[in-house]
């Protein structure tokens, strides 16, 4: 067994401990409104065909929303970080827009985009945009001045500098932003389905809660979490492949 797998396996103890605590708490409560992991597992078994169908819808929207945010916000963040004056002046704007709670902007978005997929994707993209923009902006804002000098002395145009210097050196922090953005696009995908319910896991959860089948709702959510785990594992892989220069550079060579 390699060191990595050992760490992975021992690490599993943490979530298992939490599951155990949850199970104990559920057994103490004895009400269908507080199901334990066991009940949720049974509910997964009972509901998985429906869940899988709804899950696809939820995920698709999350992916589209995230993608939209990524292709717009990473370039924008780099632009604002590099063209410092504009970035500094617009900082409060970022804070203002970032603070609006999705439940409060949903009615507003609905006015322009309706209640269908369009509206939900817009809201998801909005939620994913914030961490991506902030991390990209801060990263490109704090690139070591030496690299800017290299770029200028090699006569890179502004655009080339952003693409060839700012983007790669910001990647480690963008990756963190992307992790946050992935989580929040899944979360908001579900939330938007709960608030503008038509279909998807959020609607399934909402309906389950309203008819007091909490375990079924959580079963649906468990799948969202699973999707989160899988996507994050993928991001981890990408980080290893693309950012080794950042992390290997840093670690004392063994």
């Amino acid at each position, binding site marked *: 067994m390699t060191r990595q797998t050992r*760490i*992975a396996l*021992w*690490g*599993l*103890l*943490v*979530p298992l401990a*939490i599951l155990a605590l949850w199970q104990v708490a559920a057994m103490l409560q004895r009400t269908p409104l507080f199901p334990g992991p066991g009940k949720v597992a049974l509910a997964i078994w009972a509901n998985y065909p429906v869940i899988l169908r709804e899950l696809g819808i939820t995920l698709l929207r999350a992916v589209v929303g995230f993608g939209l945010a990524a292709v717009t916000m990473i370039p924008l963040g780099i632009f604002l970080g590099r063209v410092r*004056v504009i970035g*500094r*002046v617009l*900082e*409060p*704007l970022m*804070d*203002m827009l*970032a*603070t*609006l*709670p*999705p*439940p*409060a*902007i949903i*009615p507003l978005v609905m*006015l*322009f985009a309706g209640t269908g997929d369009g509206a939900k994707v817009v809201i998801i993209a909005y939620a994913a945009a*914030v*961490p991506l923009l*902030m*991390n990209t902006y*801060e*990263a490109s*804002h*704090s690139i070591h*001045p030496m690299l*800017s*000098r290299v770029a200028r002395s090699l006569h890179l145009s502004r655009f080339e500098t952003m693409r060839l210097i700012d983007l790669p050196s910001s990647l*480690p*922090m963008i*990756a*963190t932003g992307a*992790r*946050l953005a992935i989580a*929040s696009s899944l*979360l908001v995908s*579900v*939330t938007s389905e*709960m608030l503008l319910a038509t279909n998807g896991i959020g609607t399934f959860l909402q309906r389950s809660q309203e008819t007091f089948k*909490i375990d079924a709702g*959580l079963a649906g*959510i468990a799948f969202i*979490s699973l999707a*989160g*785990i899988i996507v994050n594992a993928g991001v981890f892989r990408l980080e290893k492949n693309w950012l080794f220069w*950042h*992390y290997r550079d*840093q670690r*004392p060579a063994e």
Partner: protein
Amino acid sequence: MIPGIAVLAEKFRVPICIALVLGVWQIVFVLGVVNEKYFPSIPTIAVAFGQMLTDGSVIAAWATTFLRALIGLIGAALLGVALAIVSDLSPILSRGIRYVSDVLQPIPPAAFVPMAVFMLGLGSKLYAFVIILVTVWPPYLNGVAALAGVGPVQLNTGRMFGLTNWGLLWRVKLPAALPEIFTGIRYAATISLIAVIVSEMLAGRDGIGFMIFKKAFAMRTPEVFGLMFLVAINGVLLNGLVNLLRRGLTGWHMRMMERSE
């Protein structure tokens, strides 16, 4: 000339940004894309907001919400950084915490509320739970990445001068990682406000979230938007506080970055 304008613009950036938002809003209004009933003009909103101000209820609600968000942010930031530190010290716990964060992060707080009510009631504990649950992740994730990214020469320097793992963390890694951690805290500041508003909507008796909820039910749209603008301003305020702290703790970094032309 140009630098003069830039300096001036930076000095008045908050009013500029507010004017920008209001301006765009008003333009959309004038274009008449949607019924004024759902999308009122800025003057209408201002008048409605002014009326709310005069009866004083807004101030109290604002104070409640802002205080909650601030306390939530402090709690979440401390917890998030603590988790990052623990992760840095132990690879096993690091992995374990990452599993938990991967699982919990995408779950909307509303999914927990029916259950959380059993453990935490409808009061401040429920709020704290919801706020912490969504707000810890940015400081935690930025913290983990930043601590892992501290350079080998700096680490070696610390080790050389007799720092233990703990001392290394405290005196080298944490200061070096702080600028990046603050990016997480900044994002957390905005989320914490969102979380407070959402929990006030979920089970409320006071605060801006509850007020928005009630006004919406009474179809007082201008007031609802007025309150939303207030929330937005809160974001700037809260961030101003974060920036003060940040300047104190990582001022060196800000000045180092300003050096290049």
